[in-house]
C-alpha cells in the first residue's frame, strides 16, 4: 500500500519545510506558543520582556476532579504555517497561542504593531486559540504631569494603576486614567486582541501573572478539545491524516473494518497526544499503548511510529523531568566521569525501574543538581517546581510508584528505533524521522548511552531529506553539538569541519566565511589542537596531516574575511607547531606564504581578541631561525669587574680536604645552572652570542633582533642579520643594563618573514638550553684609557693575564742603565670619578730583582686621586736595568768556595800563603792575570797544593773559560705588566674594581762584564782587582773610583784595581763572608760606565762576586796589632835585621786586641824557616836555630784593648838568611761554648742584616779558624862572629 503512496508524493509537497533541531521528547507534552517581537526592533528593551514571558513556561491547574496538573508551554519565535498541518498527526506541532511584543513611540507606530499582530493571528488562525499583545510605549512626558512634582512616583502610580486593571484598554473609565498609555494612544478598531501597555522603564510587575492567565486560558481550551475528543463515538470518528496522506485515501472505502480500526486508532493516538499535553500522563500512556496495538494490527506504519514516539515521549516526561529545566546541560566531562558508575548502576536501574521511583532517573540525573535529586523523593519535596512535575501526575495517587505501562529506560531506545524504522518507510515523513532521531539522541544522552547516540546520529545522515544548503549546514552543526555533549570530540570535529566547508563550498552563492572560520576554530579541540602554540608543542599529539589541513583552511577563511592579522597569526601558528611534520618543500612554501600574508599585516606577539571574545594567543617563530646555542659573554678582560679584596677562601686546618664543609651550598650552585658566574656592569655594553641556523632553503633576513630580558631595566640594541641557508651563523646581540640587580635573560626577539616573535629559551625544545640566564649587574665602574711615554711593542706578550693588557711599552737598555716611563691615565667615564687606583708590577723575573728594576712613587700617585670624570693622572715608573755583571761560574766551584769546614784548612792556608807570597806591588798586567788565574784555579781545585804549578798549567784553560763564557751574556728579554686596579663611585663601595695592564717589554743588552776578580792586600786598603769586559760594540769609558777612568775598546777587556778601605772585622763577621764582601763592595765600589760618544751610561754592580774566606780576611782590618822588637829594636817592615851566630837574640812580641770583641783561644806560633826562593821552604831547622821557651803559646783570652807580651830568646847556630813566621791562630771552639757565645750581642755594624742572621753568622764566624800573620815575615841575616 505504501508503495503506491510514494510516487504521488512529489506533486503534493506536503513536507515540513523546516526541521526543528532543538526539539526533544518532552516537547510532546508542551503547548506551542509563538512569542514574536513586532515592529522596529529594539532588542535591548524588549529582551527583558521576552525573558519575563518565557519564564512562565508552566502553570498548575486544578481540574474538576481536584487533581493538580502541571501544564507546560513552549515558546518559539518562528513557526512555519505548514507545520500546523501536522497538528493532527502530532498535536504538539500545532500553534495554540500567540504573544507579540512591540515598542512604539507614537500612534502610527502603535497602529503598525497592531497590524502586525492581527496579520499573525490571521496567518495562524487555523489553530490559534488565543492571542495577547504586549506594547511598550514612550515614558511619561514631564509636560503630562506638570501637577505632579515627582516623576518617579508618577511612574509607580502608573504601574499600580496598570496592575489594578483587569481588562486592559477597554476599561477606560478607570479613575487614574490620566497617566495611562492606553488613554494616550488608542488601538485601531480592527485590533480585536487583548493588549497590555507598559511604559518603557516600567517594571512590568504584573506581566507574569497576565501571561499566566493567558496560558491558563489556552489550557482550558485545550482541555475542552480533549474532552470533546474523548467523548467522540468510536463509530463516528473521522480519519485523521498526515498532510501527505490526503491523496492516498481518495476513493478508498472508509467504512471497511480495517479503515474503521485505522480511524479509531488514529483518534486514540490523537487523544493520547492531547492527554499528554493536558498533563494526564497515565491516560496518555495507556492510550498510546492501545493506539499502538490497534494501528499495528492494521499495518498503519506511519501512525504506529507516531504512537511509539508518543509512548517514548510520555515515558521520558515521567522519567526525565530534569530534561525540561536543564536541557542537556551536563558537560561531557561529567558525563565521562559517571561512566564507571553507570556500569555499576545500570543493572539495578533495570530491575527496579518499575517499582522504585528513585531509580527512574539515571545515575547522571542523580548526580545533577538538587532539583533533580529532589525529584527522587517526591513526597517530601514541594519546594521546587521541578519536583512537583514528577510528583503531580502520580505522586499523590500511587505513592511514588511509576505507572505500570511506562516504558523502561532501555525500552525507550528500542521504541524510538522502531518508530524511526516505521517513519523511514515514508519519504515524506523524513522530517518527522529526523526529528525523532534527534529526540532519541537526546534521550540517549540523558541515559548515558553513547553508542546509541552515535547510532541515531549516524542514521540522520542517511535520511533522504531534501534540504537547502543552509539547513544541511545546520544539521551538521547540530550533530556536532550532540557529539560534543557525549564527549566525542573527534566525531564532533569531523562534522564541525564539514559544516565549515559547507558554508563556503564551491558554487555557493553567498559563502559565509565568518561562520566557516568560527566552526573551523571550534573544531580545534577535536584535532587535539589548541590555540596556544606552546600547548600544542607541549602535547605533541594528534594527526599532523589533519592539523595542517585544518590550519590551512583556517588561514584561507581568515584571509577571505579580510582579517590579515588573523591570517598571519594562524600561519605563524602553523609554521611554529607543525614545522617538524612538514616536508622541506612544504616548509619553504609555508614560509613564503607567511611572508606574503604578513606583507598585508605584520605579525606581532600580542594576543588577538575575536568579536566573540575568543582570545588567540600569540604565536612566535621560535625556531625560525633555529637557535643552536646562546652564550652570555663576559665583559672584555680589561673591563671585567673583580673584587678589590679577594675574600679568603674558607680554610680548614688542611689545605685540601675532601670534606666539603659547605657542600649544600655548592650543590645548590650546581643546580642553578642558568646562573652566570661573572658579572655585568651597569651602563656597560654587554654581549650575548647566539648561534643561529636558517632551516629554509633561501636567504632569511632577520631584522630587529634584540635580547629579551626581565628584572633589571635593560636596553637592547637591535641587530640585523641575513642568514644563509643551513649555515650556522654567530650573531652578537648587545645591550646595556641600566640598573643594578639581577638581570634575567630570557631569549631574544626577532622580526623575520614579516612576523615579530619573542623567542624564549624555555620554549626552545630539543636543545639543552636553560630556561633563562641570570646575570648580576653591579653598579657602574669608571673606565680608563692608558698611555705611555714609550713606543708600543710590535709583539704582544705571552705572559699570563695577557688579555687585560690595554697598551704596551717597549724599552731597550744596557745592563745597569736607568730610565723611566711616564704613564698617563685618563678617566674616560663622564660621570664617575676615579677614586681608587692600585698599581703593581708583575714580571717574569724574581721578586727581588723586580724590586730593583721597577720603582713607582706610590705616594705621589695616591696624592693625585681622585681623578675627576674626564680627568687625567700621570705617574712615572723608574726602570733600572739590573743584571748580573759577573760572569757566571760553574756550580761546583761555588760549592767549594762555600765550604768553610775545618777539612779545608789546608786549602785556606795554602791560599793565604799564596797571597802572602805575592809581592805587595802590582807590576804588570800579565802578573795580575796570572794571579787571578791562580785564584780561579785554586777555587776550582781544592787539592791545589802546588798552586803555582797548577796555575801555570791551568792558565790557558782559564783563558779559554773566560772567553767561552762571553757568548752566554746575551740580550735578555724581560716582560713585565704594570697592573692597574681602579674603581670609583658606588662600585667602589660595593667592593668592585677593574683591572687593566700595561705591558712593558724590556730588552737588556749586555754592557759590562766582570769575568774574574781577586783581592790583593795593601797597607791600609786592599785592592779589588776586576777583569772587566766591554760587551758593547762601542768604546766604553769606565769610571771605577772617584777620579780614575779607563777606556775599554769594544769587545775588549781590561783589569782594573780598585782600592778599597778595609773594614773592621765586626762589620764582616756579622754576616756571611761572601755576602758581606759583596755588600761592602757594592757600597764602596762604584763602577760607572759611559759609552763614549753617547749619553748612555750606567752602573755595574758587583753582585755575584763571591770572596773566599781568605779573601775576606784580607778585606778586613786585623784585630791584632803586632808590635815586635828584635834585640830591643822594633821591627820595621822590610828592614834588615842582623844577628850573630851563637849569640842570644831577644825576640819580644806584643799583641794588642784592637777589636771590640775579646779574642779567645789564640795560639801564637813562632816558626823559623829558610826560603830557598825556588818555592821550597825549609822548616826543619832544629840544627840551625833554637828558641827558648815554647814556640806555640796559648792565649786563652785576650780582652779588648788588652795587651799580651811574649818574650823569648833565639840562638842561631849557623849563619844564613832566616825568616820568621809569626802568626796567631784562633782555634775553633767547641760547639757547646759556641752556643753560649751566641747569647752575646754583636754590634750591628754597617750591615743591614737582621738580628737573627747576625747570631747565626756570628756562630758561624766563631766556628772557623782565623789566621793573622805578621807580614811581611821578619828576615834575619845571621853572620859569623
Amino acid at each position, binding site marked *: 500500500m505504501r508503495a503506491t503512496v510514494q510516487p504521488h508524493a512529489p506533486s503534493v509537497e506536503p513536507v515540513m519545510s523546516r526541521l526543528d533541531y532543538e526539539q526533544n521528547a518532552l516537547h510532546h507534552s508542551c503547548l506551542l506558543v509563538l512569542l514574536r517581537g513586532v515592529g522596529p526592533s529594539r532588542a535591548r528593551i524588549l529582551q527583558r520582556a521576552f525573558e519575563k514571558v518565557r519564564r512562565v513556561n508552566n502553570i498548575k491547574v486544578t481540574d474538576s476532579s481536584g487533581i493538580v496538573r502541571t501544564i507546560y508551554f513552549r515558546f518559539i519565535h518562528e513557526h512555519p504555517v505548514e507545520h500546523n498541518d501536522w497538528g493532527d498527526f502530532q498535536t504538539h506541532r500545532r500553534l495554540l497561542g500567540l504573544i507579540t511584543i512591540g515598542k512604539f513611540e507614537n500612534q502610527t507606530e502603535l497602529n503598525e504593531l497592531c497590524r502586525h499582530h492581527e496579520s499573525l493571528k490571521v496567518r495562524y488562525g487555523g489553530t490559534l486559540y488565543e492571542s495577547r499583545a504586549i506594547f511598550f510605549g514612550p515614558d511619561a512626558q514631564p509636560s503630562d504631569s506638570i501637577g505632579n512634582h515627582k516623576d518617579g512616583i508618577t511612574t509607580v502610580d502608573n504601574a499600580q494603576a496598570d496592575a489594578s486593571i483587569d481588562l486592559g484598554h477597554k476599561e477606560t473609565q478607570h479613575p487614574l486614567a490620566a497617566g495611562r498609555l492606553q488613554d494616550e494612544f488608542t488601538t485601531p478598531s480592527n485590533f480585536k486582541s487583548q493588549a497590555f501597555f507598559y511604559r518603557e522603564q516600567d517594571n512590568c510587575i504584573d506581566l507574569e501573572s497576565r501571561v499566566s492567565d493567558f496560558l491558563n486560558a489556552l489550557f482550558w481550551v485545550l482541555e475542552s478539545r480533549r474532552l470533546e475528543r474523548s467523548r467522540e463515538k468510536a463509530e463516528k470518528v473521522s480519519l485523521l491524516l498526515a498532510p501527505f496522506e490526503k491523496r492516498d485515501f481518495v476513493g478508498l472505502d472508509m467504512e471497511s473494518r480495517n479503515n474503521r480500526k485505522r480511524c479509531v486508532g488514529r483518534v486514540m493516538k490523537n487523544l493520547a497526544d492531547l492527554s499528554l499535553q493536558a498533563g494526564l500522563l497515565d491516560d496518555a500512556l495507556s492510550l498510546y499503548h492501545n493506539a499502538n496495538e490497534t494501528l499495528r494490527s492494521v499495518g498503519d506504519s506511519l501512525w504506529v511510529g507516531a504512537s511509539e514516539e508518543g509512548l517514548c515521549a510520555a515515558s521520558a516526561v515521567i522519567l526525565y523531568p530534569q530534561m525540561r529545566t536543564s536541557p542537556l546541560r551536563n558537560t561531557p566531562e561529567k558525563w565521562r566521569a559517571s561512566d564507571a558508575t553507570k556500569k555499576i548502576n545500570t543493572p539495578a536501574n533495570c530491575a527496579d525501574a518499575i517499582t522504585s521511583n528513585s531509580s527512574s532517573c539515571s545515575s547522571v540525573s542523580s548526580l545533577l543538581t538538587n532539583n533533580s535529586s529532589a525529584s527522587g523523593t517526591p513526597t517530601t519535596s514541594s519546594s521546587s517546581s521541578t519536583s512537583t512535575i514528577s510528583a503531580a501526575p502520580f505522586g499523590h495517587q500511587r505513592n511514588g510508584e511509576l505507572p505500570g505501562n511506562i516504558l523502561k529506560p532501555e525500552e525507550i531506545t528500542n521504541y524510538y528505533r522502531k518508530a524511526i524504522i516505521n517513519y523511514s518507510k515514508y519519504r515524506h515523513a523524513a522530517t518527522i524521522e529526523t526529528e525523532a532521531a534527534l529526540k532519541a539522541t537526546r534521550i540517549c544522552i540523558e541515559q548515558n548511552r*553513547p553508542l546509541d547516540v552515535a547510532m541515531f546520529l*549516524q542514521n540522520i545522515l542517511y535520511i533522504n531529506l531534501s534540504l537547502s544548503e543552509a539547513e544541511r549546514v545546520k544539521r551538521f552543526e547540530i550533530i556536532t553539538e550532540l557529539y560534543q555533549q557525549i564527549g*566525542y570530540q573527534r566525531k564532533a570535529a569531523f562534522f564541525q569541519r564539514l559544516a565549515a566547508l559547507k558554508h563556503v563550498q564551491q558554487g555557493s552563492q553567498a559563502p559565509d566565511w565568518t561562520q566557516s572560520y568560527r566552526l573551523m576554530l571550534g573544531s580545534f579541540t577535536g584535532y587535539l589542537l589548541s590555540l596556544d602554540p606552546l600547548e600544542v608543542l607541549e602535547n605533541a*599529539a594528534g*594527526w599532523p596531516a589533519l592539523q595542517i589541513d585544518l590550519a590551512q583552511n583556517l588561514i584561507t577563511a581568515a584571509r577571505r574575511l579580510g582579517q590579515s592579522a588573523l591570517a598571519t597569526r594562524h600561519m605563524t601558528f602553523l609554521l611554529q607547531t607543525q614545522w617538524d611534520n612538514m616536508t622541506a618543500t612544504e616548509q619553504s612554501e609555508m614560509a613564503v606564504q607567511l611572508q606574503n600574508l604578513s606583507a598585508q599585516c605584520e605579525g606581532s606577539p600580542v594576543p588577538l581578541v575575536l568579536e566573540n571574545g575568543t582570545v588567540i594567543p600569540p604565536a612566535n617563530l621560535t625556531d625560525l631561525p633555529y637557535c643552536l646555542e646562546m652564550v652570555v659573554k663576559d665583559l672584555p678582560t680589561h673591563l671585567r669587574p673583580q673584587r678589590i679584596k679577594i675574600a679568603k677562601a674558607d680554610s680548614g686546618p688542611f689545605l685540601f680536604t675532601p670534606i666539603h664543609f659547605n657542600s649544600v651550598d655548592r650543590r645548590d650552585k650546581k643546580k642553578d645552572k642558568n646562573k652566570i658566574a661573572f658579572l655585568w656592569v651597569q651602563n656597560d655594553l654587554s654581549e650575548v652570542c647566539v648561534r643561529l641556523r636558517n632551516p629554509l632553503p633561501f636567504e632569511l633576513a632577520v631584522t630587529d633582533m634584540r635580547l629579551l630580558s626581565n628584572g633589571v631595566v635593560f636596553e637592547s640594541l637591535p641587530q640585523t642579520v641575513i642568514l644563509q641557508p643551513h649555515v650556522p651563523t654567530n650573531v652578537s646581540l648587545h645591550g646595556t643594563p641600566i640598573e643594578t640587580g639581577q638581570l634575567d635573560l630570557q631569549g631574544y626577539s626577532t622580526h623575520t618573514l614579516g612576523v615579530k616573535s619573542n623567542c624564549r629559551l624555555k620554549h626552545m625544545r630539543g636543545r639543552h638550553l636553560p630556561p633563562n640566564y641570570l646575570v648580576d649587574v653591579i653598579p657602574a665602574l669608571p673606565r680608563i684609557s692608558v698611555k705611555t711615554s714609550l713606543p708600543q711593542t710590535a709583539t704582544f706578550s705571552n705572559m699570563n693575564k695577557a688579555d687585560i693588557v690595554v697598551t704596551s711599552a717597549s724599552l731597550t737598555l744596557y745592563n745597569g742603565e736607568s730610565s723611566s716611563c711616564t704613564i698617563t691615565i685618563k678617566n674616560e667615564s663622564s660621570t664617575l670619578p676615579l677614586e681608587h687606583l692600585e698599581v703593581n708590577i708583575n714580571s717574569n723575573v724574581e721578586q727581588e730583582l723586580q724590586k730593583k728594576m721597577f720603582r713607582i712613587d706610590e705616594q705621589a700617585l695616591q696624592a693625585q686621586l681622585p681623578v675627576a670624570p674626564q680627568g687625567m693622572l700621570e705617574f712615572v715608573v723608574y726602570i733600572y736595568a739590573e743584571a748580573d755583571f759577573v760572569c757566571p761560574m760553574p756550580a761546583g766551584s761555588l760549592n767549594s768556595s762555600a765550604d768553610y769546614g775545618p777539612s779545608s784548612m789546608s786549602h785556606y792556608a795554602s791560599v793565604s800563603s799564596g797571597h802572602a807570597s805575592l809581592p805587595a806591588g802590582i807590576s804588570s798586567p800579565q802578573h795580575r792575570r796570572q794571579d787571578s788565574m791562580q785564584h780561579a784555579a785554586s777555587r776550582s781545585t781544592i787539592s791545589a797544593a802546588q798552586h803555582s804549578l797548577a796555575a801555570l798549567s791551568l792558565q790557558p784553560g782559564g783563558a779559554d773559560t773566560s772567553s767561552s763564557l762571553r757568548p752566554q751574556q746575551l740580550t735578555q728579554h724581560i716582560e713585565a705588566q704594570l697592573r692597574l686596579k681602579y674603581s670609583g663611585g658606588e662600585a667602589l663601595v660595593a667592593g668592585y674594581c677593574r683591572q687593566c695592564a700595561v705591558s712593558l717589554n724590556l730588552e737588556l743588552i749586555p754592557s759590562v762584564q766582570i769575568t774574574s776578580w781577586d783581592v790583593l792586600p795593601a797597607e791600609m786598603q786592599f785592592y779589588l782587582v776586576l777583569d772587566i769586559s766591554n760587551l758593547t760594540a762601542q768604546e766604553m769609558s769606565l769610571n771605577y773610583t772617584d777620579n780614575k777612568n779607563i777606556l775599554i775598546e769594544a769587545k775588549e777587556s781590561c783589569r782594573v784595581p780598585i782600592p778599597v778601605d778595609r773594614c773592621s772585622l765586626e762589620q764582616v763577621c756579622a754576616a756571611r763572608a761572601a755576602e758581606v764582601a759583596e755588600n761592602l763592595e757594592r757600597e764602596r765600589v762604584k763602577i760607572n760606565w759611559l759609552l763614549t760618544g753617547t749619553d748612555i751610561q750606567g752602573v755595574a754592580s758587583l753582585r755575584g762576586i763571591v770572596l773566599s774566606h781568605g779573601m775576606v780576611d784580607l778585606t778586613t782590618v786585623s784585630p791584632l796589632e803586632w808590635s815586635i822588637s828584635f834585640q830591643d829594636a822594633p821591627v820595621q817592615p822590610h828592614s834588615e835585621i842582623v844577628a850573630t851566630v851563637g849569640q842570644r837574640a831577644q825576640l819580644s812580641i806584643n799583641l794588642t786586641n784592637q777589636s771590640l770583641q775579646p779574642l779567645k783561644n789564640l795560639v801564637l806560633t813562632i816558626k823559623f824557616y829558610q826560603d830557598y826562593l825556588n818555592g821550597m821552604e825549609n822548616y826543619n831547622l832544629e840544627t840551625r836555630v833554637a828558641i827558648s821557651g815554647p814556640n806555640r803559646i796559648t792565649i786563652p783570652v785576650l780582652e779588648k784593648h788588652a795587651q799580651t807580651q811574649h818574650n823569648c830568646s833565639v840562638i842561631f847556630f849557623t849563619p844564613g838568611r832566616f825568616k820568621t813566621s809569626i802568626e796567631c791562630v784562633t782555634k775553633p771552639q767547641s760547639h757547646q761554648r759556641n752556643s753560649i757565645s751566641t747569647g752575646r750581642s754583636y754590634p750591628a755594624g754597617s750591615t743591614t742584616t737582621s738580628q737573627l742572621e747576625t747570631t747565626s753568622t756570628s756562630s758561624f764566624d766563631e766556628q772557623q779558624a782565623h789566621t793573622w800573620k805578621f807580614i811581611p815575615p821578619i828576615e834575619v841575616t845571621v853572620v859569623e862572629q
Partner: protein
Amino acid sequence: MSTYYFVIVGHNDNPIYEREFSTANKEQRKEDQRHLSQFIAHAALDLVDEHKWKTANMQLKSIDRFNQWFVSAFITASQIRFIIVHDNKNDEGIKNFFNEMYDTYIKHSMNAFYKINTPIKSVMFEKKSDIFGRKYLLS
C-alpha cells in the same frame, strides 16, 4: 573498484603508519580521497575507543561509516588502533589482514630500536603490509 586506507594510530591520535590499497589506477586516485579517508579514520577513533571496552575481541569489525565509506577497526593489547577505511564490504579479508598486520606489528615493536608510538619506518614492514594488502584486501 575498491579502495582501502589502512592506518595505525598511536596513543596520542597520531598516525604511525599509513598505507593505501586500491584496485584503481594511480591517476584515478586523488589526493582528496586520501585526505577524506584520514578525516574519516580520525573521526572514527571516538567509536573505536568506545567499542574497545565493550568487547573482549581485538577485532572491532565495522564500527562506523560515512557516506559510502566503512570503518573497520582492530585494537592491539597495547591499545594501538588499526583502522581501515574501505568502500566495500570485505569482513573476512579485513579480519585476516588485521591479524597478519598485528603479527607484523608485534614483531616490529620487539625491535629494541623502535620506540612505541613513533612512526614506523621499515622496509620490511612496508613490504609485508603490501603483501597482505594484496592478498587479503585486493584479491
